[in-house]
């Protein structure tokens, strides 16, 4: 009934193919990421998760196919038009990608300085708000090179959400984090999604966390993609998929299996 409206793709790939030289990454990839939902992109390493996020950000152009972000076709856009589109996106890179010559504070403040006319006090307030949301304090003056991997990633997440994007792309937001911080980031992303309607697309290897927070899981394999709700995938008839989800998948199914009835019409 309202399924289609609710789940209208905020981000959609159709018939996407991409190869690096002779190395084929995607062949006829179709997938969609629903508006206002949390989608988790999974797949073994090297299956193209980061590459797909880069394509959504317009950093990597597919060889063929179409990519629509918020209804706008992205393939064939000029850099200047991409810029307008990227204003609606926030991206957390796998390695953080903070500018290493600038302090953490300046890194997070950068988009605000570039795109808003907020006063210094307002900027400081927003930056500190975001930094404390990711559990970082008293690191304003540090350079990215002086942070641990987990802190770096959290600082980068603070930068990715400081402009309040519509769509947040997160490449491995949990890797390198200790368990309390995994929970903190999970709670933050869930909160942003629930309260602000943020569309969240993350890649992750953290099975339990992913199953818990995902509305939808997209599993990249064979140069394409299989998707479904966590319960659907966990109960898939395809043994390779069940194997990929592993013990966490089985446990998830034991607790949430009942959701399957009703979900499937």
């Amino acid at each position, binding site marked *: 009934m309202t399924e289609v409206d609710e789940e209208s793709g905020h981000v959609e790939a159709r018939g996407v193919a991409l190869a690096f030289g002779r190395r084929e990454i995607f062949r006829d990839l179709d997938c969609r990421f629903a508006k206002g939902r949390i989608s988790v992109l999974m797949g073994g390493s090297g299956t193209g998760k980061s590459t797909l996020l880069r394509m959504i*950000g317009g950093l990597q152009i597919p060889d063929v196919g179409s990519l629509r972000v918020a209804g706008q076709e992205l393939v064939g856009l000029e850099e200047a038009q991409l810029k307008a589109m990227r*204003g609606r*996106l926030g991206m957390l*890179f796998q390695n953080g990608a903070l500018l290493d010559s600038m302090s953490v504070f300046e890194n997070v403040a950068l*988009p605000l300085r570039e*795109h808003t006319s907020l006063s210094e006090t307002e900027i400081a307030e927003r930056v500190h708000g975001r930094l404390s949301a990711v559990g970082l304090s008293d690191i304003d003056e540090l350079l990215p090179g002086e942070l641990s991997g987990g802190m770096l990633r959290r600082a980068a997440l603070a930068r990715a959400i400081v*402009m309040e994007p519509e769509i947040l792309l997160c490449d491995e937001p949990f890797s390198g984090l200790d368990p309390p911080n995994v929970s903190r980031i999970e709670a933050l992303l869930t909160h942003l999604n629930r309260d602000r309607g943020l569309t969240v697309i993350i890649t992750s290897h953290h099975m339990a966390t992913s199953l818990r927070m995902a509305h939808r899981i997209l599993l990249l394999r064979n140069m394409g993609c299989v998707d479904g709700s966590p319960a659907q995938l966990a109960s898939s008839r395809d043994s390779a998929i069940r194997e990929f989800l592993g013990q966490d998948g089985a446990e998830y199914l034991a607790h949430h299996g009942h959701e399957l009835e009703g979900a499937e019409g």
Partner: protein
Amino acid sequence: MTRGLANLGAATLRQIEELGRMIRFGARIVMAASRPPFRWRAFMAAVYDSGVLSVALICAAGLTVGFVLGLQLYNTLVRFGAEDSLGTAVGLSLIRELGPVLTGLLVTGRAGSAITAEIGAMRTGQQLDGLRMMAIDPIHFVVMPRAMAIFFVLPLLSALFVSLGIFGAYLIGVELLGLDGGTFLASLEAAVEFDTDVLQSLVKSVVFGVLLALIATWRGYSCEPHSAGVSRATTSTVVTASIAILLADYLLTALWSL
């Protein structure tokens, strides 16, 4: 044989394509520079890195070259009894040729390579992509201020080199070899013309500045994104920019004497 020719042809085509991409990149830098805001802070920081920190090197090199010129030219001129024209000989060779060329080569080694390495490392660390995703143009934010700084400091450093060179030759000629100071300066002043010599010097250093700024930033911006790629790009900046400067020097000199 045919295979060899085909390979040569393909390599030449690739070089021409690369040149085309570099020129388009240059056009984007110029467009970025004319699009406000001009990034004064980043520009001043780059002027400091590329210019101020090169001052000691340029002074030392200028002085040394001045010493050598003073000595060599004196020894030659004295054979013709023309040692009174030491000022002319030193001044013209420094102003027209050695000042701009050697400054260009030295700044290539000191600042051009550093710019390539820095931009290359930013590319490798996905910092440039990070900027793009924040809707910030990396050419405007990173490349333009550094390119403008090279363009701006090269003529100044070249003038500094020339001054120190003349001073060095004066020290050798007048203080060491006993020429008359007044004669040295008079022969310098009489020979050097603004609209030929000084202008030629300025034009050369501006052209070298453009070449170096473009090559150094392009090599970094387009490097292969890993550490070996950065290192190759850095080497390539030094080699390409040096050759480009020497070639441009020849062309400009030839054009000037038409």
